[in-house]
């Protein structure tokens, strides 16, 4: 089922959470709402679910206006950041809940419910935990139960609010791959909220980057990472070096009398050498070197005193044999230029 969000606005007291947001989510996709805290992503998700009511704007499911339907009528599966499992019910009862509360006419028989819950327990690989209570499960297990509970009612869309936010790093990595596989298997239109750009880029078919109650860019992970349309998106997706500069005849001059342009370079797109090469370089002094991890991270200070971060392969680092306090020449291989929006107003 496709979801269309049209000119949704939501204000809380003195704070505008969403400002005329438009978003198109095609059926069957897994879409990430990515943004820093306070960007409005959770509010948008809750408005789609019917848990929050927009001040103005329209939410459509498959082209039909759902704005005035309650959460109960929308048939969405909602997964909460802190699981929100029913604490007084066993895992089995939690998953069965959505089927048991149906009106008698549409309620499946006890055997059908049992079969459906067993099937879902297999899907989340917790067949042996059916009789346990939520407090007896680990965080990752609880979140899987929450997912199974949401899927039990065969929702038209699945909405997940920071689904892995409360888990530790390793479980998070495991669970998000599992979610991706699950989505490929079940195929239900899914939207998940995250502030973790790595998570969004790895799991989603499409990423909507949000900032200050607006959507900055919507695109595939490849699009938003490699072809960001705004300085915010470039800045938010991955580490970045920021220089002020000016553009003249298709050439960027950094650290000259800035004339309203921002120049971004990713740390891995900077090349360090001991000798100047070509015409595009600046001089810097290395300050701190961190060689732990797949890439070596070098922190240096430019000749005009700004910090600059460079990442390079371990081999390259060994060839250079860099040490702290050395003078090096840095050449950008790839950069992105945006008009300085703050200045432009």
């Amino acid at each position, binding site marked *: 089922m496709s979801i269309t969000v049209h000119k949704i606005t939501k204000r809380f007291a003195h704070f505008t959470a969403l400002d005329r947001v438009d978003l198109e989510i095609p059926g069957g996709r897994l879409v990430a709402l990515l943004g820093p805290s306070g960007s409005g992503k959770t509010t948008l998700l809750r408005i789609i679910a019917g*848990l929050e009511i927009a001040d103005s704007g329209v939410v459509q499911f498959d082209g039909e206006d759902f704005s005035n339907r309650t959460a*109960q009528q929308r*048939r969405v599966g909602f997964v909460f950041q802190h699981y929100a499992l029913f604490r007084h019910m*066993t895992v089995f009862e939690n998953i069965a*809940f959505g089927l048991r509360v*149906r009106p008698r006419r549409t309620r499946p028989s006890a055997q059908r419910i049992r079969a459906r819950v067993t099937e879902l327990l297999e899907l989340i690989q917790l067949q042996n935990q059916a009789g*346990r209570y939520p407090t007896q499960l680990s965080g990752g297990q609880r979140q899987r139960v929450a997912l199974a*509970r949401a899927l*039990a*009612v065969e929702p038209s869309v699945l909405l997940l609010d920071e689904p892995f936010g409360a888990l530790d790093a390793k479980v998070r990595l495991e669970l998000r791959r599992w979610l991706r596989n699950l989505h490929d298997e079940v195929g239900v239109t899914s939207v998940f909220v995250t502030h973790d750009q790595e998570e969004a880029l790895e799991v989603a078919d499409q990423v909507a980057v949000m900032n200050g109650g607006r959507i900055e860019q919507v695109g595939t992970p490849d699009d938003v990472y490699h072809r960001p349309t705004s300085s915010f998106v470039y800045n938010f997706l991955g580490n970045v070096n920021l220089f002020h500069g000016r553009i003249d005849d298709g050439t960027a001059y950094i650290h000259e009398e800035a004339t309203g342009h921002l120049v971004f370079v990713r740390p891995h797109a900077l090349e360090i050498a001991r000798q100047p090469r070509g015409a595009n370089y600046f001089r810097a002094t290395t300050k701190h070197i961190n060689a732990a991890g797949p890439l070596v991270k070098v922190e240096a200070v430019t000749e005009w005193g700004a910090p600059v971060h460079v990442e390079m392969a371990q081999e390259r680092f060994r060839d250079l044999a860099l040490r702290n306090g050395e003078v090096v020449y840095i050449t950008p291989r790839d950069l992105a230029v945006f008009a300085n929006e703050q200045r432009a107003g």
Partner: protein
Amino acid sequence: MIGAMTLPQAPALGESAPVRRALIGATVMFLGAFLLAPLALIFAVAFGQGIAAYFASFRDPDTLSAIRLTLLAAAIAVPANLVFGVCAAWAIGKFEFFGKSFLISLIDLPFSVSPVVAGLIYVLLFGARGVLGPWLTAHNVHIIFAVPGIVLATIFVTFPFIARELLPLVAAQGNDEEEAALTLGANGWQTFLKVTLPNVKWALLYGVILCNARAMGEFGAVSVVSGHIRGLTMTMPLQIEVLYNDYQFVAAFAVASLLALLALVTLIVKSFVEWRVGKPGGQLA
């Protein structure tokens, strides 16, 4: 060392054994002298002239009428405060609104006001010379020195018990589970019955027990509005006082023993609730 085995503690807090024994001893002695001994004395005096005399006390029609009135007042006050307590805890715990902290203080009012003052409020409102007195007299409605006044005063003094017991729990649990139930297709009533109520049932039970104990035991407020008409507007605590003043010690303490039993039941239920809450599926938070 026995002390170290029964009281495993961080070394920094490990008082020496004599100090520990002295502290525990002092506590037990205090509780014994001020709580257990008087309680035991009630039963000792009540049964002082044999079991027959004890049960004979309950054949007195005035005493029976007092017990009936106490049960009636509790039977009205407890359900009324149950409904109110659940509503108040729900509204205050789940929603944000203007004047919320004022409402919380208001709920606590009966705790901070002397019961005598509480009784006087009703006399000033509904008494013959009260604000609504002439109108009530004209319509032949009797509140003060009658059963309705006793029920009203009881409701007033027991007002905070259930709300106070539920409030912190409801606030700590937040709205997540209710929202989850709604998205799963449950309606408001199903959500309340299957999610909200089971989550607070033990606190609710304890609140009801406390409320009931106070409703049956209230003396001050009820005394002011009762008028002490024997056989009509006497509750158990009032009857105890009257019997005692009439030197009918066995009868006075026999009725008192019923109220003391109620206190014991309250304690047992409290222990049970605490034990139950500690078990899986019964967590408080």
